[in-house]
């Protein structure tokens, strides 16, 4: 497994209730993401454990776009990945964000 720790600036959405939420399942080509309150309102934290080696640049690009796309400052995203493609990673993160908004 390869691990990746990333902290990125992101806007904060005060209407988002900081809570824990688990989305997705660890299975081949898929991942789970655990959302929790983070240490800093102006930044979001990503902790990634992935089965696919050598993709840290791609992860950084995917996560940077996500942090730009949505106001997720003040949140921590912990990911267990079993070889999801960037498309699936983005989709799961977007879905997790939408679940946060709707709950």
């Amino acid at each position: 497994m390869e691990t990746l720790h990333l902290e990125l600036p992101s806007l904060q959405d005060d209407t988002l209730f900081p809570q824990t939420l688990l989305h997705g399942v660890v299975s081949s080509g898929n991942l789970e993401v655990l959302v929790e309150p983070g240490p800093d309102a102006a930044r979001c934290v990503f902790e990634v454990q992935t089965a696919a080696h050598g993709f840290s640049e791609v992860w950084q690009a995917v996560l940077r776009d996500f942090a730009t796309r949505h106001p997720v400052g003040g949140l921590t995203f912990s990911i267990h990945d079993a070889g999801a493609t960037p498309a699936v990673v983005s989709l799961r993160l977007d879905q997790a964000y939408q679940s946060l908004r709707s709950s």
Partner: protein
Amino acid sequence: MMTNPPQSFREASARLRVQGLLDAGSFTEWLGPARRITSPHLAALDAPVSFDDGVVVGQGLLEAQPVVVIAQEGLFNGGAVGEVHGAKICGALLRAIEMRARAVLLCVDSGGVRLHEANAGLIAISEIMRALFAVQAAGIPVIALVGGTCGAFGGMGIVTRLCDALLISEEGRLGLSGPEVIETVKGVEEFDSRDRALVWRITGGKIRRTLGEATMLLDDDIPAFRAAAAKTMGDRPRQRGLSPDALQTLEAAQRRLEARATLDPGIRDGQQVWQQMGLGEEVALMDPAEFNRCLEARER
């Protein structure tokens, strides 16, 4: 013309199954993902772990009655039972006694023991069985719900058969050794695991219901599972010790087994069972309601 699609039980994750089975908003998870109690064995093998080790346990309400719910995630390592996974199931069962739950809903979706954790997994299965007996001795019915991608095999197949009732979808499967295992050990002539139709005619929900191992055959629909679980719970009043009709229940089970023993021993396929009962090819496409009616008419 579009109606709402059914909420597929098979396609839902364990977490969504739990949400859909219980009264809205009533679920409280025990040892949730944020606790990060993950498998040390998988980590040692450098394999992906899951925050909940592939099983969701907790309490909630089913039609306002307190219940314990346990749901295995079939997509994580085939729902296989490891040390943490097994301990969570075991603990949840024992907690049901402590909190005097009205019932336990056990969503089995598992190929059996997690091979990465061999002995720990095997021990976990035996502990689950012992806990399950304790729950039953406390008069709390345990209802198995099977309709996930993995079915209920290996040790979890046995656990499923120990439950008070088994609610299964047509897509659900129940067995001891899985088809792939049988094929590997005994050859493709014994069991062609790629013949999906054959696999389901031998292990699938319809034949399990026919043989009396499943209580009810259901649509692949979460609300259908919820309604059936509520009905099953209502039919089984909480009862410490032997119920007054325990003898009758045992005798009925004995009669079913005797009837099953009269089936032609040459039978190797569910289709032949249905033929002997005077049912033909139409069985394959009967929806669960029609199938249950058809069987109930025969059982009377």
